[in-house]
């Protein structure tokens, strides 16, 4: 059996696991509800008299802060708590198969959640004539951002047997990766840090790249940023699994 088939086996198991407990479903409903409410109410879709999904995308990072940890928290913590990690690691899988299978299952669930917001897109298309290219890039950016956050969440889930701890750690880590790009914080540190350092900090933040993509331009550097963060944390995830597996 090749690596793709092995990853697919793990993917199927992990994706199905989201439907055996009501938890993921509850988070999904909350996510969809909040997306709609925040887009129409807070975002002022009607008041601005402009048909686009900018408000919807603006709230995505914030919604990810609770949806993503809810999806990633169980990935490793649960296997470590119940001991099934020993089963997985003694079946003919490599750690890489497990890391990728689990990550892809969580990411697929997040992408399904995102796809279920399509009625919002249809609504703005019906209300006016939005720039569909910008919206498409917005969706791609949201999916990439969720992927990066999920990789971080999966990585942190491997440190603990407790899903609640994994949830909190992931939420905090993703929040930190967001705030380091806030103008407020960057203005604050620019007083005593050299310009290049401030720019480096900004370049590390998801917000910088997410907002850049929200302008509707598919810039290779932004895509590369999300892909690199995801790959780096998945790599680290494998190392932590090996390190913590027997504890």
């Amino acid at each position: 059996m090749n690596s793709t088939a092995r990853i697919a086996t793990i993917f199927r198991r992990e994706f199905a696991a989201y439907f055996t407990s009501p938890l993921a479903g509850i988070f999904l409903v909350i996510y969809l509800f909040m997306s709609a409410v925040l887009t129409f109410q807070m975002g002022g879709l009607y008041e601005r008299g402009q048909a686009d999904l900018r408000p919807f995308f603006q709230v995505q990072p914030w919604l990810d802060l609770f949806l993503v940890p809810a999806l990633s928290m169980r990935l490793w913590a649960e296997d470590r708590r119940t001991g099934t990690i020993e089963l997985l690691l003694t079946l003919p899988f490599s750690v890489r198969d497990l890391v990728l299978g689990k990550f892809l299952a969580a990411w697929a669930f997040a992408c399904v959640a995102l796809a279920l917001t399509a009625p919002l897109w249809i609504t703005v298309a019906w209300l006016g004539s939005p720039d569909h290219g910008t919206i498409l890039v917005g969706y791609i950016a949201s999916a990439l951002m969720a992927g990066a956050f999920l990789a971080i969440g999966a990585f942190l889930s491997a440190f603990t047997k407790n899903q609640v701890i994994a949830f909190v750690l992931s939420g905090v880590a993703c929040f930190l990766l967001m705030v380091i790009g806030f103008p407020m914080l960057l203005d604050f540190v620019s007083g005593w840090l050299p310009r290049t350092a401030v720019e480096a900090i900004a370049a590390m933040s998801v917000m910088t790249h997410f907002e850049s993509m929200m302008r509707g331009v598919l810039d290779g550097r932004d895509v590369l940023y999300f892909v690199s963060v995801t790959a780096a944390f998945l790599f680290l995830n494998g190392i932590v699994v090996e390190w913590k597996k027997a504890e």
Partner: protein
Amino acid sequence: MKELIVARGLRKSFGSFEAVRGIDLIVPAGQVLGFLGPNGAGKSTTMRMLTGFLEPTEGTVTLNGIQLADDPIAAKRTFGYLPEGAPAYGDMRVEEFLNFVARSRGYTGAEARARVDRSIERLHLEPYRRQLVETLSKGYKRRTGLAQAILHDPPILVLDEPTDGLDPNQKHEVRELIRRLGDDRAVVLSTHILEEVEAVCTRAVIISEGRVVFDGTPKALDAKAAANVTSNRLDHVFRMLTTSDIGGASRTKAASQ
């Protein structure tokens, strides 16, 4: 007979604590090896090294001719493993869980179904096949773990306390199964029930504090008991070999030589 498990010089340290201190184990096909020892002796740690869950601090493991460190995935196909406590996915039904294991072992479609059915039949799990694993009693959970381990008919079986939590009837059935499986396979099972060794094993290895203190047939183990010990003879030998209050001094001397 073909040597299916060849473990040499296994050592495992956790920080500064050395749990396994140099164990050699060569198990040919047709042998059922009973791995005995008091709690904390290093049985599970050794089995985890045999199955590649833990990397040995020192030593090598070769399974059916494949060195575990060289090709872990190929080596992992050669054995079925029941980890301590028989971990399984609680949110799956018995047949779903076994189907997951079948897929993990590369079976699909009709072949996967046939494998799952046969495993369910061999462990008498038919009435429970649609039950969620988390709702199974301890004994049936252990049987599900065994069903998972034998699903692909591996030449090697590593079973960590396979009869723990089973009632006397279930124990009897599982021992019968293991004995049958052991006809043409290498089986290593850990236990702290001495009668189990007499009932199913062709070889007994006792470890204490990470070292082998006895390696021989169950009969030879029995013979070590003094002639005047008439009841629980094996228990007596076990205590003699693994504690310091009876005959411990001579063991320490023997081990340090």
